[in-house]
């Protein structure tokens, strides 16, 4: 027990998140585009006589507004460090969970179970996410297994059998979607990534004593470390202060020229380390998910004829879905330079993100229809409706995380 406490990482994990040059370029480009979009929104608002209906303009401006918020908070998180970013995602999850449970009718007997859901499981889960990749087993299992057992048990103890299974399922679904699924996005920050040829890429955020030992003594016995890590790496010192050197030491080779087969890392292994940053990958993911929503909406408006499930959502069409998939794949390919992916891998990731995001939107629409509300935002007036913004993110995050973890870290073999 004591050893476990001793092994907890120090608060030095407040440390900076590394942002490499490509990531900074992408952040800058997005900032510029957001500025332009904001400006266009202003102009459209001033011209009520234009061809576009005022409702569309209002939706557009609201969307841009919420993107600005996401952008600013995310960048602030990156600048403040790893802990701040995880806390930011925790707050988003917490708020989404509030919206979800507020919308869902619960009974008196659910009160204590809800209390533990909010006060214990949500923060605890994010705590383990913050502890990083070594606790992958804990944060992957806790909510799907233990919360799923504790919640029905706690409800049962309250002694109200009415619609028991339905009530517990609602709480479990809320926790799974709002907290568990979304938390896979910040969990990306602590993966020890490599590209598909096995060359290390980027830098995991949590630097542990174990890492330092491995880097210093060149021991290959680390459980989660790649076999390629058996030589000291000057490019990955534990001190954040030395990080800016990394890009200079390691010129970034183009993705195509990577040597196939087992990685070749010599004493001069640093030369082969591709620069990159996990934060850039996280930003790439969020950007694709958000734009995928827009692509699907836009294609649906332009070409949409065949509605997929009119009773669930009358505006989601096959044309919008397919158009969105293709557009997102294209964008994912174009932006592949901030990721460890090769071009075709980026395209596939785009496809996966698009399909999962679409599934998320459909699922949340179904829940909303069942409750007879249009938006989570209008549920309680004046609230922004966090759940409306993150539904596709919640569904895409676990898929993207696991694909990345399996194929772009050493665990995939």
């Amino acid at each position: 027990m004591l050893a476990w406490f001793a092994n907890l990482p120090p608060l030095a994990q407040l440390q900076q998140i590394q942002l490499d040059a490509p990531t900074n370029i992408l952040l800058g480009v997005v900032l510029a585009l957001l500025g332009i979009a904001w400006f266009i929104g202003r102009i459209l608002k001033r011209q009520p006589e234009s061809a576009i209906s005022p409702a569309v303009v209002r939706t557009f401006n609201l969307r841009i507004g919420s993107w600005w918020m996401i952008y600013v908070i995310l960048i602030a998180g990156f600048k403040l460090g790893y802990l701040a970013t995880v806390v930011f995602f925790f707050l988003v999850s917490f708020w989404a969970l509030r919206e979800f449970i507020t919308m869902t009718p619960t009974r008196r007997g659910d009160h204590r179970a809800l209390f533990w859901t909010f006060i214990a499981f949500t923060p605890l889960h994010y705590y383990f996410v913050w502890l990083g990749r070594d606790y992958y087993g804990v944060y992957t299992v806790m909510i799907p297994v233990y919360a799923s057992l504790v919640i029905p048990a706690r409800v049962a103890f309250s002694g109200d059998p009415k619609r028991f299974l339905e009530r517990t399922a609602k709480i479990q679904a809320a926790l799974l979607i709002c907290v568990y699924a979304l938390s896979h996005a910040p969990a990306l920050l602590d993966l020890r990534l490599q590209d598909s040829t096995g060359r290390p890429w980027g830098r995991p955020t949590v630097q542990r004593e174990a890492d330092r030992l491995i880097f210093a003594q060149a021991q290959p016995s680390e459980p989660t470390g790649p076999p390629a890590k058996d030589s000291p790496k000057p490019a990955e010192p534990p001190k954040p202060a030395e990080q800016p050197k990394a890009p200079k030491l390691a010129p970034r080779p183009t993705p195509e020229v990577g040597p196939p087969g087992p990685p070749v890392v010599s004493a001069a292994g640093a030369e082969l380390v591709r620069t990159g940053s996990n934060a850039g990958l996280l930003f790439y993911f969020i950007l694709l998910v958000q734009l995928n929503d827009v692509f699907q909406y836009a294609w649906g408006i332009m070409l949409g004829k065949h509605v997929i499930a009119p009773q669930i959502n009358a505006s989601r069409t096959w044309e919008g879905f397919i158009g969105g998939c293709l557009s997102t794949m294209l964008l994912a390919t174009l932006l592949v330079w901030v990721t460890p992916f090769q071009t075709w891998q980026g395209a596939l990731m785009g496809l996966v993100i698009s399909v999962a995001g679409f599934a998320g939107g459909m699922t949340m629409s179904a829940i909303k229809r069942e409750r007879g509300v249009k938006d989570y935002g209008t549920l309680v007036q004046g609230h922004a409706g966090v759940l409306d913004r993150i539904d596709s993110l919640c569904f895409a995050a676990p898929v993207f995380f696991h694909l990345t973890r399996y194929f772009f870290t050493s665990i995939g073999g």
Partner: protein
Amino acid sequence: MKITVSILAGIAKLLSGATVRWIESQPDTCQRVYFANHTSHLDALVIWSSLPRAVREVTRPVAAKDYWSAGPIRRYIAQNFNAILIDRDEIKVHQSPVDLMIREIGSRYSLIVFPEGTRNTEEEMQEFKSGLYYLAKKRPDLELVPVYIDNLNRVLPRGEFLPVPLLSCITIGPPLWLEPKENKLLFLKRARDAVQRLKEQ
């Protein structure tokens, strides 16, 4: 003292996730009686916290003495929110609570009252007790402002002491007064309907 109150109000607002809507009415420091449906122990605190600061300073919630003077924390909170504590057991014997309220507010303070008397466990609001009528009769100058509290009963239901931070909504409606020659039953029904109407808006 004032800082603690602001912090307490902030916590109450954060915990209850309260949205405040003013419908056909404005915040004002004139003397008012805010009357609301009663669903949770948090009701008085959350309404009080939802008011703008200047209004808050001249508004006193009316609360049950047996609950709010039990234990140092509750007593501390009641004191900080400047609550008027009513002894529910001794109401009829010694003094009318309406007289006590009128004495306490003088010509400066507003009140937050819950005419249903006790917290409601059903979906439907209970009948209003007559206190509001006598208050209106003795002080016809007071504006009677209906308030509807939504979802707070799920944040802290009856018999629970740990709140679940869901989202709630406070709707404040247009003031009404006791009409001349309006009898007690009609007035109480009208007041109850005014609260009920805010639910649909």
